[in-house]
């Protein structure tokens, strides 16, 4: 692709946050995570390692901030001024929020991170030059930089572990930024199968790896454009709207019982992941 072509058709190559005149047409992938169900077991994180060829970096590099979990379980304690929290930790799985107006996209000097027509925040590894500007600009700290050539120099998949690498996902090299992809390799297969049969992807036909293993079913994933999708229904019951940065929950008094929220919405990144607040005894 020539650079003139790229510049001339820039709007074609770089999808933007869809407004009313440019809505998502066939797919808008979204997720909802029920924090009431999440037990902090970390199964999602492990599944993501296995599905996406993530290198296990070890304690020392982890301590240096060179971790590679595309989904991490954050822990919060509600101490309320006391020395110990009486209800233990609250868990929150944090992954790339696939922001509609992603702050990471606008700052990439080479356009390696883009918005897809399906409403995903895409990261193209072989285009990334490793400026790490996106990482600096992501308010969710959901991006991970490859500091080492894990596959070769660090031999993180010694024989026979290399046999379990997923052939549908690249093994990323040194100097590349990576992050949760909503398991795009699975989405592509599902979309392709659906197209061969002349239909759209059905709800539940495709699962992300983290969703698939979650023992409590806390994670739901699906197509927001599909009126039958579970995720869409959840978003609707919670009155969370994709294109709004102020939800019913924040404004109306009587809406306080709504549990759905998106993280740091006031930054107007319009995330595609909705969390459902944990119900606590103290709150009832």
């Amino acid at each position: 692709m020539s650079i003139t072509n790229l510049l001339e058709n820039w709007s074609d190559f770089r999808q933007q946050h869809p407004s009313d005149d440019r809505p998502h047409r066939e797919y808008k992938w979204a997720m909802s995570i029920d924090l009431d169900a999440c037990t902090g077991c970390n199964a999602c994180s492990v599944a993501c390692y296995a599905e996406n060829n993530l290198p296990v970096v070890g304690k020392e590099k982890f301590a240096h901030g060179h971790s590679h979990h595309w989904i991490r379980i954050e822990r919060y304690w509600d101490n309320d001024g006391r020395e110990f929290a009486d209800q233990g930790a609250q868990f929150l799985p944090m992954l790339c929020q696939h922001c509609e107006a992603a702050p990471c996209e606008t700052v990439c000097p080479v356009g390696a991170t883009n918005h897809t027509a399906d409403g995903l925040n895409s990261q193209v590894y072989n285009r990334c030059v490793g400026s790490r500007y996106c990482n600096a600009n992501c308010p969710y700290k959901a991006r991970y930089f490859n500091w080492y050539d894990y596959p070769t120099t660090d031999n993180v998949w010694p024989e026979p572990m290399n046999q379990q690498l997923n052939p549908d996902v690249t093994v990323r090299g040194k100097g590349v930024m990576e992050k949760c992809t909503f398991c795009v390799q699975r989405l592509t297969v599902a979309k392709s199968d659906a197209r061969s049969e002349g239909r759209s992807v059905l709800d539940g036909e495709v699962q992300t790896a983290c969703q698939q293993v979650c023992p409590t079913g806390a994670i739901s994933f699906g197509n927001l454009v599909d009126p039958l999708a579970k995720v869409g229904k959840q978003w609707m019951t919670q009155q969370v709207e994709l294109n709004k940065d102020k939800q019913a929950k924040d404004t109306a008094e009587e809406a306080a019982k709504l549990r759905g929220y998106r993280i740091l919405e006031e930054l107007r990144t319009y995330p595609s992941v909705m969390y459902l607040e944990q119900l606590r005894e103290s709150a009832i």
Partner: protein
Amino acid sequence: MYCFLRLSVLLVGLIVSASSYAANAVQPLTTADDLGPKVEQPIEFPHDRHAGDAAKGGMEINCMYCHTYARRSIVAGIPPLQKCIGCHQSIESVRETPRIKKLFEYWEAKKAVPWKKVHDLPDFVRFNHERHIQRFVFAQNKPVQEACGYCHGDVKTMTVARRQKPLSMGWCVSCHQKDHPVDATSTKTTHGPNDCWQCHK
């Protein structure tokens, strides 16, 4: 003296780099000898005999007879040795030719023929045969050899296949930007997707 030497080295360097730049600039995407590397296959497979036109002694076998997976999977697949033998055990006329003898040697040794990959894309590229075959052969009714030929060239005239097209990203995109009819009868056209994640992984 030293200074002159340095200057001349600099000048030569400049000229060399300028001329190599010029050579790079005029290089077209495809040249006559841009056939990709010549791949030595264990058996020099005559695509022309199998898929070639009847008038030229070919048998006009459909590409998908051997590359069975092309229409239903991401990869086209290489036929198992059993498929070759399935036909060749009842074709007496060529039974003693060196190529077929070699074929039966593999068969008797119960070993697969170690065919080599000719159209090898980098690991970060996802190319889906099914999508293209469904689109052009089944929806648009294009002859199989024409549809396969968009990327593989005129294989029916080759013996061992060689890469004919650059298979670079620009080349893929140049086709994805064209409007192709959706099916054989309708006038509706669409172009291929240009979202990075469609092909990159």
